[in-house]
């Protein structure tokens, strides 16, 4: 399989704080990746760089065989133009911690509007797709509610449907259950598990739900201080971590290990 995402020596700082330090990362097409690690370790920044919400300071990021933050012009490599970024964003979808639904639109309008505006679908096509996705995320009866009338878990499922409606090759999930009340976490994770097993979309998820990471992921990356400390199959990371920092981190989630 080919690499759909590649980070080569990518560095990123916010002021004095270096969040990524010469990061190298390869993700295969269709792979399901879980990023774990302490807060501020740079996991979320990776997703935000891929979604073009953060620029990079140094290095190269490739998506689907093309540079994301650069483009070729007369054989020279120059920083990406807005046009290039627009083209590249078409491959990528993101679900946010705080859902970020459009509050002035109903649930189904949230899923329809981007399809008609950006994917140039007709209203009927967009509606059909939206209804299909509402069925998938189990919200068929909530489609005409406004976001504020829905629970956090329901809002997050609408947000997942909205991202899926754009047919991205790569889906990014940024701590999608962190803002939810504990009893609502499962309904969102259930949807994600279903997606992971049914689709060949590449998925990257930043999560603090270790049980979920274990089931969801083909590969788990443990991050600390802007670098990948350890990576491997979920069984090996969770059952037999080799690095001291991984062990220490996982100890905090002791109930989830074994």
């Amino acid at each position: 399989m080919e690499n759909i995402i590649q980070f080569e020596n990518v560095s990123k700082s916010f002021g004095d704080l270096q969040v990524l330090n010469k990061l190298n990362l390869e993700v295969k097409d269709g792979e399901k990746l879980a990023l774990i690690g302490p807060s501020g370790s740079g996991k979320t920044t990776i997703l935000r760089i891929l979604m073009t919400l953060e620029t990079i300071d140094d290095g190269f990021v490739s998506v689907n065989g093309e540079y994301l933050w650069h483009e070729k012009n007369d054989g020279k490599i120059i920083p990406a133009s807005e046009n290039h970024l627009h083209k590249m964003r078409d491959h990528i979808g993101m679900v946010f911690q705080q859902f970020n639904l459009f509050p002035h639109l109903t649930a189904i309008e949230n899923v329809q509007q981007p399809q008609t505006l950006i994917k140039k679908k007709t209203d009927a096509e967009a509606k059909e797709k939206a209804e299909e996705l509402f069925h998938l995320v189990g919200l068929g009866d909530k489609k005409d509610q406004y976001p504020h009338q829905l629970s956090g878990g329901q809002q997050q499922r609408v947000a997942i449907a909205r991202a899926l409606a754009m047919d991205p090759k790569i889906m990014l999930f940024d701590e999608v259950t962190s803002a939810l009340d504990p009893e609502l976490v499962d309904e969102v994770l259930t949807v994600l598990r279903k997606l992971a097993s049914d689709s060949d979309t590449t998925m990257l998820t930043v999560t603090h739900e270790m049980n979920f990471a274990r089931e969801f992921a083909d590969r788990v990356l443990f991050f600390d201080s802007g670098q990948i400390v350890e990576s491997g199959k979920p069984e090996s990371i969770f059952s037999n971590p080799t690095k001291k920092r991984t062990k220490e981190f996982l100890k905090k989630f002791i109930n989830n290990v074994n």
Partner: protein
Amino acid sequence: MNEVIEFYPILIKGTITTIQLTVLGAILALIVSFIVGLARISSFAAIRVIAIVYLEFFRGSSALVQMFFIYFVLPMWGIYFDALTAGVVACGLNVGAYGSEVVRGAVLAVGKEQHEASKALNYSIYKKYRYVIIPQAIPIMIPTFGNLLIELLKLTAVASLITISDLTFMAQIIRVQTALTLEPFLLILIIYFIIATILVQIVDLIAKKFSKGRNIMTAGDK
């Protein structure tokens, strides 16, 4: 008082003129508010500077003098307006300057997460503002726009000084004709108040329509 009531045809005419000035001025003010308000947050420095100069000029000088300028001075440079147009332009440009601050504030009040969601869905800058940001900003603007509309109504009274026969102008005529002072001015005070009350009701209706089924101010909170 009966003497004054006999002048009701010109009072009605004056009321209509005042409403005309207010409505046309409001339309111009609204257009100016959006153009200048959005220019203030443009990524082009030159556009921002022009918008700031506009805002500071119209906010920092007298509305009456601006109106005199448009009606008496511009013709010296070959730019002619009839009195009503000059009144509308002066009121609209002046209130539009204040309105631009309302637009700017409301647009900036829409959270960063809405910009990020739009980007993640690949909205262009134009589509982001047109379909996501401005629709959420409008309900925030409406109450303050309502206040400005009342300010605009009161500002139209100075238009009588450039020969526009609005309510205030008509009151002066009645005063001269009847030698009564209290009655005509008391009467137009009441008429201004009634117009203002009706405008407040209309703005409330619009606000209700825009916020129906939505809860924008609390969105983004968990």
